């Protein structure tokens, strides 16, 4: 146990710091907080599908300068360095281990687009290093992790924005405003659905590709040999993501449900599902139906193949005593038309990396305001889908104590709220 990964977090950073010092701007050269008109100096960790979208948007965002990119696979971050250079003429630094970035004093904030099982530790370590954080959703894979993330953000006084970017999209802001203004009456039921689950079947063990730090990719998760299915399709494996689409699109959509009903702690949860036509070796189910009971409102999650509602392959609905609203990222519609609310067509979504959401993050770095998708709120939305996943796992109805963040009189289910980290990583 004498590899760099066995060193305590700070031991690593102090050693790494001596290496990185030459590249770093002394702290004193930076102003006290990021002034209103200065660019935020940012690093992106994780150069996969989502990370590369963020990089593409951030490279041309005038509010930030992209100082560094990082990925456990060298080829990935080299590719992104080239892309950034083509987009804005500057070449960011590249790293394989994100802890080198945390040790640079000249970087204000870090965006993490890593696999889900890394989100909590990435965020906590960055907060401890004095960085503000943008972390992709779902923000955690267990409730314990999420609470530890909030604690670290508050303890170290950092801004932590989650990648639930729909909070910054005008379409959802207007839809939620309608709901909060009472245009639908009292909301009694709400829900969300998705018509896909992209998890494949099985895996093939292979040698670790050259240039990939597989041990670091696994991080706090149990050690297993390399397979492309895990590396490229982490969402299908319980060690890295809990719930498949439930933890992917589910968090996005149920986050808006929480916003609309102004509640984020279910009282009770039931789920059913399975991998019926296929995928005997899949960790995460392809079909999931969940019912979450909130005070005065029942919320459903409905995940099936070809699951269209009013022609939409995914979406959110709220049923009020006076009217109903149905929405996706393209539009929302209030039914019946006699409510006088015209159908709203949103701005075309150019990228999942939403510049408005980025800019909200940068604004909050400057002002120290809580961001649009603050970690506490994002954790609670993530927790709801994690609870649905636990109900699926234990195959029975569960009752939730939102204050204590434990199930009521259910130590068996409570065990699923936590996972052990592979040493030396710890929360």
């Amino acid at each position: 146990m004498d590899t760099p990964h066995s060193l305590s977090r700070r031991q690593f950073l102090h050693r790494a710091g001596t290496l990185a010092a030459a590249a770093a701007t002394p702290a004193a050269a930076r102003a006290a907080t990021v002034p209103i008109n200065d660019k935020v100096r940012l690093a992106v960790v994780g150069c996969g599908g989502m990370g590369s979208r963020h990089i593409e948007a951030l490279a041309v965002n005038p509010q930030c300068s992209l100082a560094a990119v990082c990925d456990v696979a060298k080829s990935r971050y080299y590719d992104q360095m080239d892309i950034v250079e083509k987009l804005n003429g500057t070449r960011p630094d590249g790293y394989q281990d994100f802890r080198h970035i945390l040790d640079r004093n000249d970087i204000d904030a870090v965006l993490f687009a890593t696999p889900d099982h890394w989100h909590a530790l990435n965020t906590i370590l960055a907060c401890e290093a004095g960085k503000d954080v943008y972390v992709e959703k779902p923000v955690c894979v267990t409730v314990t992790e999420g609470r530890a993330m909030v604690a670290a953000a508050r303890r170290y006084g950092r801004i932590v924005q989650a990648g639930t970017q729909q909070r910054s999209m005008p379409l959802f802001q207007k839809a939620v405003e309608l709901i909060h203004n009472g245009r639908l009456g009292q909301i009694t039921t709400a829900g969300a659905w998705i018509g896909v689950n992209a998890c494949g079947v099985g895996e093939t063990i292979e040698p670790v590709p050259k240039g990939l730090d597989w041990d670091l990719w696994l991080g706090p998760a149990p050690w297993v040999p390399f397979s492309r299915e895990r590396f490229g399709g982490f969402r299908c494996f319980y060690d890295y993501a809990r719930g498949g689409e439930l933890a992917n699109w589910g968090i996005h959509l149920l986050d808006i449900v929480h916003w609309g009903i102004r509640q984020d702690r279910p009282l009770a949860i039931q789920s059913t599902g399975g991998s019926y036509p296929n995928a005997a070796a899949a960790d995460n189910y392809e079909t999931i139906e969940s019912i979450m009971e909130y005070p005065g409102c029942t919320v459903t999650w409905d995940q099936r193949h070809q699951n269209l509602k009013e022609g939409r392959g995914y979406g959110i609905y709220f049923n009020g005593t006076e009217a109903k609203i149905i929405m996706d990222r393209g539009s929302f519609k209030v039914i019946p038309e006699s409510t006088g609310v015209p159908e709203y067509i949103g701005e075309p979504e150019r990228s999942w990396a939403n510049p408005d959401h980025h800019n909200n993050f940068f604004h909050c770095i400057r002002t120290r305001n809580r961001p649009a998708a603050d970690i506490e709120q994002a954790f609670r939305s993530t927790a709801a889908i994690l609870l649905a996943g636990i109900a699926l796992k234990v195959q029975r109805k569960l009752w939730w104590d939102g204050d204590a963040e434990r199930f009521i009189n259910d130590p068996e289910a409570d065990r699923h709220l936590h996972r052990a980290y592979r040493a030396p990583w710890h929360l």
Partner: protein
Amino acid sequence: MHPRRHLLPLALLLAATALAQPATVNLASLIAALQSNTESQRAQARQLLPAYGLDALDATLPLLAHENQHISRAAYHVVEQIANEAGNTPRGADPDRVAARLRAALDNANAASLKQDLLQLLTLVARDPAAIQQIARLLNDPELRERARAALEEIRTQDAALALAKALPAADRPFRIALLDALAQMPYENTRDAILAQTKDKDPALRAAAARALAPHARVQDRHIITHIVETADTASRFDAADAELRYADALAARGGNVALVLDLARHAFAHAADPAQQGAAINTLGRYGDTHTIPEILALLNDANIAELAAPALSAIQAQQGPGAARALCTAWPAVPPPLRPAYLQLLGRRGDPCALPHLQEAAQANDPVLRTAAFAALGNSGQPAALDTLIAAIENADQAEREHLRTALQTLAAHFAAANDRPNAGKAALALYRHAPDETARAAAAETLRRFPIADAADVLMKILRPDELKQLPVAALSGIIAALREANHNKKADELQNLQFQRLDSAAAVQEIIAFAHASGTTDQWRDKLGFIRKWQLLGPFPFPPNTGFQTPPFDPDRPDFNAQYGDGRRWTPIENDALPPIMDLMALTGPRDHVSAFAAATVHSDKPRDAQIRCGSDDAIRIWLNGTLVHNHLIDRGTALDADIVPIKLRPGANRLLVEIGQYAGGWNFVLRLTDPQGRPLNL
């Protein structure tokens, strides 16, 4: 014996049996299917095998070591589900028996990967002390100790925690730290003594890990142990030690009633912090748990050397102070704010929106330092104060080009604030300033748009200038209302009359009326519009009467030309006068009878016309509707639908004097209501 050798013959036997009888779905056929090369067969086996409980477990366990990864993985999921159901659901197999089989398999397993799988599966059912002890024994196995530690951490019972604690003395340094980190996640009382023993170790890193494990116990008596560990930390462990102290402070605060101790711990952590980020955390702890008295203390901790890195957490800490008292404390502390922090501090003052901040913001807006001035402009914009508007408008008059942009941004922020608060005069005033100081046509157009929404008298000349006749015709019909009001306030009555007539001419569709309704709700002017859109909102209602789903409307129980409003029908049903002030006045018939299906109700009203005239009845209904005018049936629409404005348009002729309207609404199921208005033949409201 290796479980594969022990149980494989059973699996093969079952598979052979299944192949001989392929049509029957039973345990044997499912085990065969699990070993097939077809994914869909394995999927079916995975789904059904858990129903066979212990028998399926016995047959599936050997397949965990199958050389085909697809099969071993599918087998793992079957065993996982059996163990999961045993551990979590009443319908599952006896958990102790499942655990016993998994333990036996673990004892007999050779391959490390198989042992690791079995350890993971055991976490689902291992409850009894013997199972815990069996896993605990593996804490001494160099190859498996990490998985055993993780398994016990995930089992999370007091026995599991105690087993981890007991392993501490014999463990080497890295593993002892791992054990302490696991214990930090389950702060049971029975592990305290073992953790406390580690706080006395000579290795500072171990002591720091022990402090981290002690922190969530939140015991006041641990204070001196933890502060001592912080004070005796070496360079490598200083961060972990001080971090443990801050976690301890958080845990004490969460327990409540330890504010003085928590603040002392924060001060101690600041003094012993490993780096500025950790100093920032200590400052933040002061702000989160202290009262307004900590604001000057926090400011005093900042100096030229540390300000760059401590500014952000200091601001977060100060921002944690809430309420009017906090706003005043922030204002009082202003003279002590270090100059590099002042621009950001001004923002904080501005966002509080407290009048006490305004003098500081106004003074800073005239400072020589352009950075401070710029910050003050933004803060004034965020303050939402009407007085800030005057300051910004005065400043923009004399500003240079660069500064004007900052002022424009601040004015936009203020305008948006006033617009959101529906403060029409100030929103219009800000928009007028933005219009007059627009740097280009795009900005001018944006300001003009705000002015159209919030027209003010001072802007009447601008409005007259910016609104071309063709533009007026294309303006949203609701926007004309605000402009008309602004023109009247500025005594441009002639132009106001013209616009009012134009607006009336354009109110000729359901869409235009809906736009006005939305505007009336948004602007709080529903009183002004209630009787100007042709709606009939005073009715006499009577019902319910039968409305059979197969035949629909029945013969009315009275003469449609002469309803007797004093008559009583059947079991006491009488005409009930209803006046609806809502806009639109949708008449809810369920309010009359409660939820009912297959019934109808009547509504009667009288309208007076000064002369004979052509007109239209425009109505929507949920569900069917028929209408008599002066005793003559003029409309009959047997339909199952929801209500929409002007869904039906019925040309009519009104006679001079009183005209009697009688409406019957048939209810199939669900909602039951109607809305009706009168218009002229072009669809413009007829308010009689």
